[in-house]
């Protein structure tokens, strides 16, 4: 026994020593996505922060590329109350969860100046009236349309439907519209845009579940018809995520595509793309009684509740969310800044590959997903039910009734049910 115990103790002691004894440099750890150019940008900006703060050593803690794996890792770390990473990059849909769990610090005491941030992004970074994170960059759902097939983007869903059907009947493209229909988070963002277009929502302003209301049923019926009755969305789209959807549009097979801003630069790459200079973007159009809606994605920065250096961590958040850093990110990774004022600058227009006026229209239509600590499970319930309806296993109405019932049970079980009866 003793022969085993001693080496174990030594390992633990060595680990503790590595974590910086007194007198060493203050260590600050940052964890976030390091996909493609992101790793380089973050490294560069962390070095600059270190130069301004002598004696501070900032480390990048690399996490898996897949968002749900990063989420799982964060939950495990924060549950164990580890003090690092000090600063965390959160997906917009996680903030409420982490805030409610007490894993990230409320920022009200440091009184962040948030007036400049996009309202939808700001809404996603608050929980029960308190600011818990700072928006970093945003993502918005866009309708890509072919300028060689149409002279203007569709101004309504009916127009989109007719235009898509028209090109199909004329044999101009193989598919009318393509969107992310696989059973994953992307499907919920597509549904959210249809919901907004018909004036529906998942939760209302009081947090009640309204996803089984007539507007929502009309929205899902429109999506189901698009696949089945009207046939302008290919059934295979029900297995597609962002990249498969992009390939279809990039090969010239689709007249319309719903996707995120990242696709723009790739579609403009003439060596791979057949639609170079033949497309533009617009917000996803409105249907009856609704408004154009663009699902909001993106990332926020928050401070670990058990950070050993919360003040310094907050400084890092302030630094990374400053306009210069956002502009650099826009230039190198084409990620949209979360600050409104930047959209009036020539610097951003130069930095971004997408024409700024087209992006702004979509940002004005941005809608955040439900802000709830159990959003990921809520979304999973929806993914299954939406997919069942879209693959013809369940009528839209029954699917949404079941989804609403399951979400109400979830909220009740989590102690989060809004006022009002829980059936």
């Amino acid at each position, binding site marked *: 026994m003793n022969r085993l115990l001693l080496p174990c103790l030594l390992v633990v002691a060595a680990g503790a020593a590595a974590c910086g004894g007194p007198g060493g440099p203050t260590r600050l750890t940052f964890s976030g996505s390091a996909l493609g150019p992101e790793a380089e940008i973050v490294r560069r900006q962390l070095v600059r922060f270190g130069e301004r703060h002598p004696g501070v050593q900032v480390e990048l803690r690399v996490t898996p590329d897949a968002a749900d794996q990063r989420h799982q890792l964060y939950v495990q770390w924060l549950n164990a109350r580890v003090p690092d990473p000090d600063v965390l990059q959160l997906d917009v849909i996680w903030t409420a969860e982490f805030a409610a769990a007490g894993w990230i610090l409320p920022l009200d005491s440091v009184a962040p100046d948030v007036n400049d941030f996009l309202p939808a992004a700001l809404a996603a970074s608050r929980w029960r009236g308190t600011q818990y994170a700072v928006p970093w960059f945003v993502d918005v759902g866009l309708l890509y349309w072919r300028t060689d097939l149409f002279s203007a983007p569709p101004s309504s869903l009916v127009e989109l439907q007719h235009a898509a059907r028209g090109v199909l009947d004329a044999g101009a493209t193989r598919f009318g519209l393509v969107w992310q229909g696989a059973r994953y988070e992307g499907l919920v963002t597509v549904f959210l845009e249809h919901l907004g277009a018909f004036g529906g929502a998942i939760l209302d302003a009081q947090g009640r579940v309204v996803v089984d209301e007539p507007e929502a049923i009309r929205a899902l019926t429109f999506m189901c018809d698009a696949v089945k009755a009207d046939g302008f969305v290919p059934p295979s789209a*029900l297995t597609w995520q962002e990249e498969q959807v992009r390939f279809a549009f990039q090969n010239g097979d689709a007249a319309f595509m719903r996707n995120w801003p990242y696709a723009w630069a790739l579609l403009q790459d003439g060596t791979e793309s057949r639609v170079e200079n033949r497309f533009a973007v617009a917000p996803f159009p409105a249907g009856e009684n609704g408004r154009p809606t663009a699902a909001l994605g993106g990332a926020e920065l928050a401070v670990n509740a058990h950070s050993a250096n919360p003040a310094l961590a907050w400084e890092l958040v302030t630094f990374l969310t400053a306009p210069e850093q956002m502009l650099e990110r826009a230039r190198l990774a084409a990620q949209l800044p979360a600050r409104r004022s930047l959209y009036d600058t020539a610097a951003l227009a130069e930095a971004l590959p997408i024409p700024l006026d087209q992006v702004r229209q979509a940002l004005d239509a941005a809608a955040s997903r439900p802000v709830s600590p159990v959003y990921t499970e809520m979304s999973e319930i929806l993914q299954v039910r939406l997919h069942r309806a879209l693959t013809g296993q369940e009528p839209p109405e029954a699917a949404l009734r079941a989804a609403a019932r399951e979400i109400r049970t979830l909220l009740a079980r989590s102690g989060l049910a809004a006022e009002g009866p829980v059936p």
Partner: protein
Amino acid sequence: MNGPATTIARTDARLARRLVAPTLTLILLVSLVPIVATGWEALHGHDLRLPWLGRPFVGLANFVEATGDQRAGSAVLHTAAFALVSVPLELALGLALALVMHTAVRGRAAIRVAALLPWAIPTVVAALVWRFMFDAQAGIVTSPLRAVGLVGESFDWFVHPLAAWVPIIGADVWKTTPFVAILLLAGLQTIDPALDEAAQIDGAGPIRRFITITLPLLGPALVVAAAFRTLDALRLFDLAYVLTGGGPGTSTEPLSLYAFIALMQRLRFGYGSALSVMVFLLTFVVALLWVRVLGRSVAGERA
């Protein structure tokens, strides 16, 4: 009675127990402790993402929830249906393959290597290959079917709730038939060829000889193969995870995949553990049944 022989036997037994003790401890640590820990966790309400609810003891509430959970119910049905369809197919094809390998005179080694190849490929890789084969646009299975008009222009295996099972079952049968075949081949080789010759001299035809001699004597090997395959089939996870993700909807979701989602995606440790315990119990009960069948078939052979 207490002669020196019994004393020696007793000392030997004591020594044997001591020698076995470390192994037993290890087995307890790696198999029994996790099972008991999972069972204990299953009796608690524990959601990693809802720390304000704590980790209260809830008795059998998680199991009660599971019995009322439509998705868990259909996952059990999916698992059972998969086992009922894939195992007989594997046994039949495996038996055919074993007979070929047994009677082959030339190129025996080559045939065995070729037959075993699918079994040696990692399941996840095999699943990816099958996914490509059944791809709706360019899959080598889909394209010819479309060319002859058997499936429509927009047909997609992975969008159809029943058709999505075809690649899963196909991949499983393709991959594990060799395993069954090797087990049965070993069984075939233990059958005394003299029995067959005697029957032949008595005028029995090949089919008669197969039914009255080979098949009964192959019984124990068949039961072992069936038992292994059933237990494996009940734990179906990776093929469904990679090929369909359990979709469309949840129409190809087996119980282990649902348990995984509850545990690792929803991070509901209590409920997920309850589902895991159900997977364990299901497999355990079926294993016990097979052990009894096996005991009977071996006894029958000896009688």
